[in-house]
Every structure is written in structure tokens, then in C-alpha cells.
């Protein structure tokens, strides 16, 4: 959205922003001052859809001076060092870690912090000499990242195969319990099971790493990294821009699925595509980013490796709108008709996006990549646009049904989508069970899975359920065994960790 001069003092005089945040916000404000109709050639239609919230440009500026996401190939540093920063190729782990931390300061992004800090295990493993001493260095390095790259979209990758470095990284991540960096495990069927289980343990304890279906992303994006939230982007490249369609908002302005599919959706989608063309033209032709960036000059990135992301949110809300119009008391997530509508919408968009001649995106076949976007609450409308293709919170079916409902939608999003699933504390002692679920999901072509631990009041031990709070509350004469066919479903309130694990004999 456009900014204006009066926004300046609301930033400079803010009581809730730090100096750094004020600095960043002022820069963003300046970027949004120019009139996009003048500077970028936005049409009236494009402006209209921005202003009525059907398109959201995530507050990217109208005078963009750098690509949104940059994915440097840090291997270049190991091979050649960095001439601009006067760094020789590292000879040992100290020089590698120090060099990387220096480099990170110089990797821009939409947040001003790097969104990708490397396939860390691959970078570090050749330099591991003394396991315990190197562990301390790696832990210090990761903590340094957390305290200086103050942005949880900073993302590191590990896997698919076990290395000493990979194991040390997981160990450090569990011990540090830091929010940053975000992390992905590039999972393959032949990833070593003990390494995967350690990653699952980390995922449950400290919410990272998540798991990416490496085979699928390699197929769809080639050599890539997982960056920012869970975006799959070309290695040594990145993405120029990411706007998103608010499908809930668009649907709400139509009175039939037909109107949506044949009239409004193509029009709005078409505008977002041309908007992207213009933004990319500006970055490549006018901003001089590639001409002036040492990252490009020294081969950490190449302009040809950049793509752009066509994001969506609110699929659930759009579908719910049409289900209601059809007189059905069903909701997206638990409705076969709802799924059918969802797929119709996505197929339409997929055709549009793949059929559009993208600008400067040679690396991805000349077209932009669909993305299921999450996060960013920038307008009232975001209340009515559930992230990505997720089911509205509170309306999810039980886990096995949820997994099967979500899987078929993953195929539309080669640049990333992610689903979140809660597991209770018994999962920590049964990592093989979590692995079964992850493997099963990937066999259905899930692209990405994040699990988290939600301590449950209701836990199962073989043969029965124990509800901890029931101990106080048993007043009824019936033995209280609450029905739950749900394992890992987040309907339980958080409670104290069950300190006595108890089991009966299945009677």
C-alpha cells in the first residue's frame, strides 16, 4: 500500500519501535512513497485490486531496490573466499564460521536480514576435526545467528544424509532452544533413520527442523534451498517478489462459483501477474541491484537463477463461501464438495500462472511459481483469509483425515507450502511413530511438514487414556475414559507434564 509523509512521524515518534525497527520502517515507507502508477506503470485495475485488498503486496515497495529473497550459494565462499569483503577461502572451521557470519551481514532481503544462511551441515562437515571442540564452536555460531539476525525467517538447511556436522547441529539446536534460525531437514527415503529420528526429536522439543520432501522439490525447482518460512527457491538465486491473492476476499465479492472461476478470479489473477512483471522489470532494469551487488559479481547469486512467487491465502474461506451459496452446511476440510471446489480454484490458477510468460524467470521455465503463503496480518481482511490452503483453526478433522485432505493440495505449490501438526508428549518416547506419519505423508506427495509439541492433559498409555485433571474431578461413578480417537490432535488444553508414566495391560 502507498505510504504518505505523515507516516514518517508516526514511526520516528513511536514508543514501541527500537532504533533498528524505526530505521527499517522508514526505509520501507520511503519505498512506498512513489506512485506505482507513475514509477511502475500500474494500471487502474491493478491499483483497484490492491486498494480493495483482493491483492496484497505484503508492503513490498514501489521502488524496489533489491530482490525479495536472496539465496546465496555459500559454497562459493569455501571455494573462492570473498574478494569484496577481503576474505580468503576458509582453512578451518573458525575461518568458515567467522566468514559466514560476516557474509550474512551483507545479504539483503525484504526484511533486511538474510533469509537463507546455508546448507550448514554440507558447509561445515569438511572442516570438522575435533568433535567436542567443534561442537562448542557450532553452538556459539548458532547462538550468534539468533542474537544478530533478529528475524525468525532466517533459515538454515540440513540433510538429507547424516554427517558429523549434521549431528552436532541438531544437538546444538536442541540445547539452545533458540527461535532462529528456522531450519529444514531435506528428507529422502534413504536418509539414515537414526539421523531423521534425532531431527524429529529436535522438531518436537524446539520446533525445528521441519521436513521437506526433497525428491519433490528437486523435481520441481532443481538445485534449491528452503528459505524464509518454507519457500523452495533456486540455489544461487532467489525470488524477486511475492504478492498474494486473498481468495476469501475475492470469493466474497462473487455470487457464484462460476462468476469466480470465469470472471473475477482470472481478472484479479491476471492483474497480479502483470503487477509482478512490472516489479521485476524495475528490479532488473532500473534498480541496478545486480550491477552493484558483489554477491552477483562474485557468483554467490546469478540474476538468471531468480524466479518470482505467486502467493495465495484464504482458499478455505473462498470454499466456505461457495459451500454456503450451494446451501451446504459443510466446511472446507471436512467436505468432499469443498475439496472439489478447492481443486477447481487451484487448477484455474495453476493454468493461469503456468501459461503466463514471466519476466526474467528463465530458471523456472519462464513462468512464476505458485506459493501457499502464511503469516502477515496486514489488513482486516486477513481475518477472513486463512493461511495457505489450511483448514480454519478449530475446524480440522482428526489427524489421519486431515493429512489426507491436505496432501492433494500440495502439488499446486512448487515454491512451497507447509502444514502444522501437533503431537503430544508421548511422541517424544515414540519417535518411530512420528516417523511413520512423516513417511506416510511424503508418500502422498506432501511437500513439507512441521510438527510441534502440545502438552496434552489427555495422554494414552497402552490400553487406556489418562486425563490428568480427572484425578481431582472423579465424581461420577463411571470410570472416566474420555473418548479420543485422536492422536496428536490439538483439542486438548495445555497442562502439566505427566510425571508418572503409567501403563495397564490392555484390559
Amino acid at each position, binding site marked *: 500500500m502507498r505510504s504518505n509523509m505523515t507516516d514518517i512521524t508516526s514511526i520516528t515518534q513511536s514508543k514501541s519501535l527500537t532504533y533498528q525497527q524505526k530505521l527499517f520502517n522508514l526505509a520501507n515507507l520511503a519505498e512506498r512513497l512513489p506512485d506505482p502508477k507513475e514509477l511502475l506503470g500500474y494500471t487502474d485495475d491493478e491499483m483497484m485490486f490492491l486498494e480493495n485488498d483482493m491483492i496484497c503486496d505484503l508492503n513490498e515497495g514501489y521502488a524496489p531496490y533489491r530482490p525479495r529473497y536472496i539465496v546465496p550459494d555459500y559454497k562459493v565462499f569455501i571455494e573462492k573466499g570473498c574478494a569484496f569483503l577481503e576474505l580468503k577461502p576458509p582453512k578451518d572451521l573458525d575461518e568458515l564460521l567467522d566468514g559466514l557470519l560476516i557474509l550474512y551481514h551483507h545479504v539483503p532481503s525484504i526484511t533486511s536480514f538474510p533469509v537463507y544462511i546455508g546448507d550448514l551441515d554440507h558447509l561445515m562437515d569438511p572442516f570438522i576435526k575435533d568433535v567436542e571442540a567443534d561442537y562448542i564452536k557450532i553452538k556459539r555460531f548458532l547462538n550468534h545467528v539468533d542474537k544478530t539476525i533478529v528475524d525468525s525467517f532466517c533459515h538454515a538447511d540440513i540433510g538429507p544424509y547424516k554427517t558429523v556436522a549434521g549431528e552436532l547441529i541438531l544437538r546444538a539446536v536442541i540445547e539452545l532452544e533458540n527461535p532462529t534460525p528456522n531450519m529444514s531437514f531435506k528428507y529422502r527415503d534413504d536418509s539414515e533413520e537414526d539421523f531423521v529420528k534425532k531431527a524429529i526429536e529436535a522438531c518436537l522439543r524446539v520446533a525445528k527442523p521441519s521436513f521437506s520432501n526433497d525428491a519433490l522439490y528437486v523435481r520441481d525447482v532443481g538445485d534449491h534451498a528452503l528459505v524464509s518460512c518454507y519457500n523452495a527457491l533456486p540455489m544461487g538465486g532467489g525470488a524477486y517478489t511475492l504478492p498474494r491473492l486473498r481468495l476469501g476476499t475475492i470469493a466474497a465479492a462473487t455470487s457464484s462459483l462460476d462468476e469466480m472461476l470465469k470472471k473475477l478470479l482470472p481478472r484479479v489473477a491476471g492483474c497480479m501477474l502483470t503487477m509482478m512483471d512490472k516489479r521485476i522489470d524495475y528490479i532488473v532494469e532500473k534498480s541496478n541491484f545486480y550491477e552493484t551487488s558483489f554477491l552477483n559479481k562474485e557468483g554467490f547469486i546469478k540474476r538468471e537463477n531468480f524466479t518470482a512467487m505467486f502467493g495465495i491465502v484464504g482458499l478455505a474461506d473462498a470454499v466456505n463461501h461457495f459451500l454456503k451459496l450451494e446451501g451446504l452446511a459443510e466446511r472446507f476440510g471436512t467436505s468432499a464438495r469443498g475439496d472439489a471446489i478447492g481443486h477447481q480454484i487451484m487448477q484455474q490458477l495453476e493454468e493461469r500462472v503456468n501459461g503466463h510468460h514471466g519476466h526474467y524467470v528463465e530458471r523456472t521455465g519462464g513462468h512464476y511459481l505458485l506459493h501457499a503463503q502464511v503469516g502477515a496480518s496486514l489488513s482486516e481482511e486477513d481475518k477472513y483469509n486463512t493461511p495457505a490452503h489450511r483448514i480454519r483453526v478449530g475446524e480440522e478433522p*482428526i*489427524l489421519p483425515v486431515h493429512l489426507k485432505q491436505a496432501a492433494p493440495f500440495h502439488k499446486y505449490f512448487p515454491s512451497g507450502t507447509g502444514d502444522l501438526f501437533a503431537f503430544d508428549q508421548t511422541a517424544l518416547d515414540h519417535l518411530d511413530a*512420528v516417523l511413520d*506419519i512423516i513417511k506416510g505423508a511424503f508418500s502422498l506427495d506432501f511437500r513439507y511438514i512441521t510438527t510441534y509439541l502440545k502438552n496434552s492433559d489427555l495422554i494414552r498409555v497402552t490400553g487406556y487414556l489418562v486425563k490428568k485433571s480427572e484425578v481431582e474431578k472423579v465424581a461420577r461413578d463411571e470410570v472416566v475414559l474420555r473418548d479420543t480417537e485422536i*492422536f496428536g490432535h490439538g483439542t486438548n488444553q495445555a497442562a502439566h507434564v505427566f510425571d508418572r508414566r*503409567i*501403563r495397564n495391560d*490392555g*484390559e
Partner: protein
Amino acid sequence: MMASKLHIHQIIPFSNVDGPGNRCAIFLQGCNVACVYCHNPETIPADPSFITKAHKKLGNENHNMEFLHDNIIEEGHAAKQPQIQYEEQAVWWDVDNLVEEIKKYQPFIRGITLSGGEPTLQWEAIVDLFDKIKPLGLNCLVDTNGFFDIETIQPLIEIADGFLFDVKTVKNSESLCGVPNQSALNQLNYLLQLDKIEEVRTVIISGYMDGVQTVETVAKMLLPYPHVPYRLIRVHVKGMQKHRQASLAPHIPKPTQMEMLYDSVRRIGHDNVSYVL
């Protein structure tokens, strides 16, 4: 061929505590004993058709119901007919429909586990189920108290991938389980020899059973089978009705007693043992 049916108390699509990995756990209705510490007493009442010649042979056809009354249901409780009350939840499933239900949980489960109650009471229908489930690549386990006639349930023994075996006690079954003269040691031995024991467990409770003798007897039986885990579980009363909590709480063994039993198993030479407090 008649469609076989299973009397099911509850199905849990994803369970990680009923055998290795993620499994679909199916709790059957009906048990041939009534252990004082049972946490699912509502699964005890069994359809009369389950009481077969085999059970009469073993002498456990109906005695458990008296025990259920006397020890589990409170004196003067309105529900004198537990059959009706507790069976409310139980549903008859066609095996074919159950197979379709289980398929819904693929590919997230590595197998299924039949539990209950005492699943072997419905062994024939389970054989039919396993027959249809195994070709799907799913591992099939059965939770059991071992009080079955080997000859009678032979087809189940053959088709099952393994048994999760509870050794309740090695003598005086009446005091613990409400039915006299029940022993599961022959059955355990038989299954061990066939390499069909996934795991052995014993719940430890003072007074109603001889923990030391039970645990040591089992440990000796497991010596030729070092890969078979033995889990000792301390009884607990959480979630039980007040009168049961009151009568059982004094019988909860101390942690040191559990440690002692654990040590004795190891001393005998079986290292693959753990205990749960």
C-alpha cells in the same frame, strides 16, 4: 462364507503405545478375567457367544463376572447388570467394513494391534481380519493375557505377526484376576519358541500377586530369548473410581521395590528389561 463380525469397544486410528511405530489400535469387547487393577473394566463383559468350549476347558467362562461385581463395581451400585451398562459403547463391526476403515489410516500406520478386553475370545474373526489386512503390508499384533487354549486358537497364532504378552501372575490367579487356576506360562513358552513374542509385560501390585516369583519365573523363561523385552509396570490408580482407589492405593509398590525386581531380572541374566514407575 458367513461375514464375520467383531465386537469392538473402541478404535484408535493413531496410537504409538500399542506396539512399535504408529498403529491403529482396536479394543475389543469382552474379557475372560477381571483383574483388580483393570483400567478398562467396561471392556470386561463379554458376549455369551465368546465363551467357548475352550474357555470351559480352562475354567474361566463366567467367574470373572462375579469378580467384576464384587471387586470392581461398587457394592450397591445401581448398575447390577454391567452387561448392559458397560456394553453400551461396544459396536458389532463387519470385518470387511473394519478393513475399509483401517485402509483410511494408511499410509500413516505400520500395523494394527488388537487389544481389549481379551482379544483371543474373538480369535476366529481376528483371523479373518488379519487375513485381509496382511496383504496390505500391515503388521498384525495381538495384546493378550495368555489365558487361551493353544490348540483352539492355533490359526490365530499362525497368522499373527506377534503377541504383546501380559503375564499377570504365576500362581493364585483368583486373588488377582478373579478366576482360579489360570496360568499363561505354557502359552508364553509356546509363543516364545515360535518367535512370536513382541514384548512381555507384568503389572506389579503388592498383596494380590507374588511379584518376585512372577518376575523371576518369566526372567528365566526369557533367558534363551535375549531380544525379547520384559517391561515391569507399577500399578497406578489414577482415573479410577474412589472406592477402587481407596482399596488399591495401599498396594502400590514403592519405587525401590520396582528397582529390586528390575535388578533381579538382570541378575538372572536377562538384560532386556525396563520398568515404569
